[in-house]
């Protein structure tokens, strides 16, 4: 029996901020294993959608399901536990913790050591602690940061901070990894290696949802994409289709 191909179904999501409709009636479906991109001019509502999908905002209307299970209304930590993890547009690392500690925090929801275990330091706890550290090391390696493992997050370069956020999000073992403008502020070289990283992540079985302004990156990497404008979805499909959509062209030209 094959698994259901649909990983995430978003239905009719709406959200207003003091009269401004940041999102209205947005629906989309993301399939298992694909890279799905979300583009649109500034203020189109992309980040707002992310905030809803990760529980930071509650939608005013609509709902969404992960693997068929209703998710709207859950807390961010519950959503992370269910398998949606994210990075932030304005990087939000734990600035005064080392890179490896940042990633270790990501393991929190997949581990269970209690206060008592921590104090007694019994063999289960020690084994778990060891596995956390190993996994964190592995993930730093995976995103290419192992040489900075013990640097404070705040002291990393911008590009490295973005990678660290990805490693931290991966540590929660997400089914869906949502990246909010991961290439922002990167030079072409860094963007290129980011692209390879994203492809590796996909190959390793994680579905990706990607907000990105770098059109070249988006078109080169995603399987399908949706375009938001003024909180509404104005187009969806494969890159080549969407590119030639007159509505999309107008939105971008009109906005710039």
């Amino acid at each position: 029996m094959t698994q259901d191909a649909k990983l995430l179904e978003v239905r009719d999501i709406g959200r207003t901020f003091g009269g401004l409709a940041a999102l209205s009636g947005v629906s989309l479906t993301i399939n298992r294993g694909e890279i799905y991109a979300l583009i649109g001019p500034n203020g189109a509502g992309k980040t707002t959608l992310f905030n809803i999908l990760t529980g930071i905002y509650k939608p005013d209307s609509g709902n969404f399901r992960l693997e068929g299970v209703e998710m709207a209304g859950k807390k961010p930590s519950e959503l992370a536990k269910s398998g949606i993890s994210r990075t932030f547009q304005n990087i939000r690392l734990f600035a005064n913790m080392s890179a490896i500690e940042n990633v270790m925090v990501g393991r929190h929801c997949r581990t269970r050591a209690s206060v008592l275990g921590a104090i007694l330091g019994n063999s289960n706890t020690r084994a778990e602690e060891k596995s956390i550290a190993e996994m964190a090391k592995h993930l730093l390696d995976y995103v290419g940061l192992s040489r900075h493992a013990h640097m404070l997050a705040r002291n990393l370069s911008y590009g490295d901070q973005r990678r660290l956020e990805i490693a931290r999000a991966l540590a929660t073992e997400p089914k869906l990894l949502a990246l909010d403008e991961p290439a922002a502020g990167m030079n072409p070289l860094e963007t290129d290696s980011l692209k390879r990283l994203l492809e590796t992540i996909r190959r390793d079985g994680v579905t990706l949802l990607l907000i990105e302004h770098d059109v070249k990156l988006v078109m080169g990497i995603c399987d399908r994409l949706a375009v938001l404008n003024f909180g509404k979805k104005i187009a969806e499909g494969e890159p080549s289709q969407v590119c030639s959509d007159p509505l999309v062209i107008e939105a971008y030209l009109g906005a710039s």
Partner: protein
Amino acid sequence: MKKHLKLAAYAALLLLLPFATGLALGKTWVRILDFALLYVMLALGLNIVVGFAGLLDLGYVAFFAVGAYCYALLASPHFGLHLPFWMILPIGAFSAGIFGMLLGAPTLRLRGDYLAIVTLGFGEIIRIFLNNLDTPYNVTGGPQGIDLIDPIRLGPVSLNQPPGHAVYSYYFLFLLFALATAFVSTRLQHSRIGRAWAAIREDEIAAEAMGIDTRNVKLLAFAMGASFGGLSGGLFAGFEGFVSPESFTLTESIMILSMVVLGGMGHIRGVVFGALLLAILPEALRYVGPLEQSLFGKIVVDPSGLRMLLFGFSLILVMLLRPAGLWPSPTRKRELLAHGETAKHENTDIYDAGR
């Protein structure tokens, strides 16, 4: 090898300290050492809340009071109960923990400032209740407090024996507990829970988004910190043999907070250092009164006011000049270089009122 030597030296120092102090300065100063050790425990407890999890608790002494009154009620002629201390201490710690959770619960959804105010109020409220719960039933003994509390007894031996040397036996008991507290703090800090606390302190929203149930983890910090306070309270009651609301004033909370801040929030050695410093230094101010008397022929500045002024100044100066304390942890020291950055991440408004 060298490490062992160092350890042995420390152990010898800690073992001989009270006797040397007693010989050189007299028993009053051994008593001051005992209190310094109690303060170490209190400061380490508050450090869990303020230093590890970044939650400002301004009424910490209330938990100390809960522990102390638990002990006083369960081991004194007041109700005629005389439970052994190994039963009462956990009861006191547990009750304090429960109080901690009850207090934290309504505010943890909100910004840290609210917690600060609520704990500030709570510290006072506890005192008002302690002062007034002598009518209609005499529960707390009112302003007079509770007297004739049983000393701590190890088996058949009371720590008050031999008479007049209690300060020595309590020194070793408190030393044991203080070391245990430091040990537990260290273990917690380097655990999954400790990392979750640090994450919340750094960026609460990111912590929640990374799968940490911030509400529970914060409550846990609160309960843990409070139960340390309750434990020290029990020890205090057994040591003093007497409790009254006088001992649990806001001043005391401020003093403990100053110890944590001055020493270095979140850094265990720094906090221990801060506790010892502020427990012992103000004692030296006792000599200021007589000194003023002999110099000017009258008291010009009230010494206890001077002590508080010192705390006030140290809180402000440390925050302005050395926000990571006098003895910061090695990692926090590096962060001093670039301080403004965290603020940009402090978008706690999302959790503001009206969510």
